[in-house]
Every structure is written in structure tokens, then in C-alpha cells.
């Protein structure tokens, strides 16, 4: 392994192509942490945005007018404003309104850190799209199938969980796929509130080493690979969910 890392130091000495996050253990740690933070932030946001989508789409079918209005209001606000503005709104507007807590060194820290705000903000952002995506899938489930479940005594919740949602899921996977890809790419916005994700760490490295070109190329390839893994996973899932003789 050392040999591998050293090779990049030689590469730098011989050609001037500077990839310090490979040969320098300090920068390497920064890059690995950034990479892991990006993955963790993506996973957290993927999870919560899908949960928001599933619950929001269920609430949209509510018989209470105000429940539907609140969900629609949420969608409008988060779909029609820039995600960076949302992120700033959460971090700087809501974040400063919350009480401070004493930290381990006796100082005052905000209740929620930048990572938490990024996770909340991006989950709501992608969740708004997911609600609409799931709604389109739910509308594609034939009413007659739902009726058959009703006639068998299924409750509304059972119908949603056992019939509507599994069928809707299959319909919406391509659209969901798109939105989740967008979400992973949007995690780079967390840079703006100093979440130490991949872009932020890369910035630290190029500030120290003045190797902007190399870092930009690396970032592009790294995100390309990361999203590629997600897409191939989703495609695999799509194939696995295919029902013989259906659709």
C-alpha cells in the first residue's frame, strides 16, 4: 500500500500532477472523511426523503381538507424555492432561533449542528418531490384492485401498506431513481454551511496545495462513480421487483 501511495509522490515530483490525498496521510484522512460524510449524508437524506414521500402521499389521500392543504403547501414551498435558500433558511433562520446548549468545553453550541441541518433541509427538499412521485404511482393503481381489498375487509392502512404502495412503488421506481440521483448530487450544497463532505474537504485540500485542476477532475470522477453505484443498485432493484406477467 505504501508503495502505491509513494508512487503518487513520484508522479507529483516527475510530472507536477499533484494528488496529495493519495500520498499525504493528513490529506488522505480529510478526503476519506469527506467521502464518508457525503455517503452518510446521502443515505440519511435518501431514507428520510422516501419516508416523507410515503407518508405525504398517504396524507394526500386523507378525507380531511386541512391535512391535504398542509401537505400541498409543503410541496409548493419546497419545490418552488432553491435548495440553497432552504438550507440557509434552516441553518441561519431556524437554527439561530433554537436554544443553545453547553458543550464539553463549557462553551455554547447550537442545538443542531450543520450536518443535522443539511440532513433535515435536503430530506424535506427531496421529500417534496417524492410525495408527488408516490402520488402519481398511487393514482396508477386500479381502483378496482383497491375495491377487491376493501371487499375482503382490509382497512385503509392495510390497503395502502399491502396493496397500493407495493404496486405504486414499481410504477414510480424510474422517477424515484431520478430524484434520488439528484438528491445525492445536491448534498454538495451542504458545503455552504461547512458540512465536511467531499466537496468541502476537497476545497480544504486545494486551498493548502493549490492543485485546483487535479481536485476538480477527481471530484467529478468521484461523484460520477458514487452516483453510478446508486443507479446500478436502483436498476437492479427495479429488475428484482418486476412481477412475472405484469406491466
Amino acid at each position, binding site marked *: 500500500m505504501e508503495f502505491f501511495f509513494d508512487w503518487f509522490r513520484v508522479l507529483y515530483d516527475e510530472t507536477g500532477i499533484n494528488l496529495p490525498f493519495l500520498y499525504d496521510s493528513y490529506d488522505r484522512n480529510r478526503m476519506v472523511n469527506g467521502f464518508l460524510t457525503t455517503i452518510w449524508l446521502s443515505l440519511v437524506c435518501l431514507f428520510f426523503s422516501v419516508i416523507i414521500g410515503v407518508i405525504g402521499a398517504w396524507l394526500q389521500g386523507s378525507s380531511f381538507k386541512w391535512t391535504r392543504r398542509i401537505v400541498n403547501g409543503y410541496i409548493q414551498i419546497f419545490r418552488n424555492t432553491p435548495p440553497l435558500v432552504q438550507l440557509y433558511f434552516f441553518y441561519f433562520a431556524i437554527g439561530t432561533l433554537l436554544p443553545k446548549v453547553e458543550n464539553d468545553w463549557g462553551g455554547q453550541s447550537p442545538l443542531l449542528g450543520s450536518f443535522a441541518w443539511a440532513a433535515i433541509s435536503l430530506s424535506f427538499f427531496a421529500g417534496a418531490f417524492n410525495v408527488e412521485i408516490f402520488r402519481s404511482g398511487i393514482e396508477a393503481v*386500479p381502483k*378496482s384492485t383497491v375495491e377487491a381489498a376493501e371487499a375482503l*375487509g*382490509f382497512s385503509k392502512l392495510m390497503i395502502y401498506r399491502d396493496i397500493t404502495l407495493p404496486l405504486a412503488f414499481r410504477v414510480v421506481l424510474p422517477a424515484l431513481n431520478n430524484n434520488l440521483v439528484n438528491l445525492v448530487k445536491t448534498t454538495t450544497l451542504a458545503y455552504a454551511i461547512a458540512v465536511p463532505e467531499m466537496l468541502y474537504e476537497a476545497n480544504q485540500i486545494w486551498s493548502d496545495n493549490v492543485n485546483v485542476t487535479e481536485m476538480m477532475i477527481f471530484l467529478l470522477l468521484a461523484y460520477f462513480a458514487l452516483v453510478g453505484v446508486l443507479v446500478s443498485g436502483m436498476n437492479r432493484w427495479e429488475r428484482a421487483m418486476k412481477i412475472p*406477467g405484469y406491466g
Partner: protein
Amino acid sequence: MSWSPSEPMVSIKDVHKSFGDLKVLNGVSLDVMKGDVICIIGPSGSGKSTLIRCVNALNDIQQGSILVEGQEVNDLHLNKLELRKKVGMVFQQYNLFPHKTALQNVMMAPVRVLKHDKVEAEATARALLKKVRLEGKEAAFPGELSGGQQQRVAIARSLAMQPDVMLFDEVTAALDPETVGEVLQTIKDLAEDGMTCILVTHEMGFAREIADHVYFTDRGVIVEHGPPETFFKDAKDPRTREFLSQIL
């Protein structure tokens, strides 16, 4: 409410139903005794499907009363689960759950709704699929089955809830002619086992063979009814005669 088998199992009294301005049922009354097989026939749009959909509260009614084993269906506080345990329904388009195998389709309601043990429910489901002559098709998805096979799975699925009365809503209307027979045979087996059945059908020959009583509906009212022997031979009402002459 207490109910004894000497009373009608399903008692429909003066039922009125409209969809917006469109009056679909205009004062329909009929009684079904335990073990009876009744057939409702009539032109499309005469309200016959709506009528049986009202019996298990898939459609609500505006006026009148429907009693199923003494339980009033026209009730704002209707316990739908209680009602639907008693009433099974089979639809024209089968309406199977496409993401579940034949076996899972049959097992699902007993496990989820009745909270039956999975192993028991599976044994019952296998027996029911055998009863509708679908042994060997347990693992097939609905999309892999013919219309007639799907409809028989739907019948088994409904029977798995152990209903007291079965509603059949034009269950052969969407089938290829060669598979109609297998579905009708299944219903006939059920009727012979003593199941109370209410059928909406266009199969006149079948109605004549299986029904204890035939009802003819037109424009939301029952125009004429009687046992099949007299009903099909000497219908009194001109509308019935015209309809029968077009069909037979």
C-alpha cells in the same frame, strides 16, 4: 342484532341509490334465504351491479334498508369489517393482487384481516385452490394465469374469508368463451355445497340451471321475478319478454 336462519340472510327493502342526478336504484326489494341461489339479469345500466355492490357497502345507498344476517348496511356507523366477513365478492375483472402469487392472494386476507396463523391459512388456501381445480398453480402470479384461472383464484380468495353469502358480479363477462365453463362449474359446485349466492349474470342458460329464483331489473326497478322454470318460459312483462327474446 340477532338473526335466525329462518329469516332472510339478505333482506333488501325499498333501496334507492343515485349517482349525482342519475337514479340507479328506484325502490328495489328482495329477500335471499340461506342456501338460496338467486340470479339478477337485465340490460346494462339497469342497476343490477350497483345493487349487489350495495350489499357489501362498496356503494352506499340513500334510502331503504339492506339487512345481512340482521346487520343493517345503511348505517353511518356500519362495522364494515363485520359485514365483509359475512359477504364475499367476485368481480368481473377478477381484481387479483398482481404482485402476489395465487397462493398469497388467497392467504392474504385471512392472515392480515382475520389474523389467522400463517401455516393454517396456507393449508386452507391450498385446499381452496384445489377445490377450484388450480392445484399446481399456487406459485403462479396472476399475470401468468388465463382469465378463467384468475377468476377461480378470485373465487378461492373470497372463500378463504369463509363468507356466508357470495356475490358474483358478471364474473364471466370478461372471459374467453372457452374458459367460461370452468368458472361456471366452480360456482355450481359452490351452490351445490349450499353456499348462498347472489349472481348478476348474462349467462341465461346457467341462470336457468342453477338459480332458485331469477330477478329481472330494468331502470332501477325489479320488473319481474320468479323461479327459473316459469320465468324463462312465460314471462308476463313485455320488457322481460323483449329482453329474453334478444338474449336467448
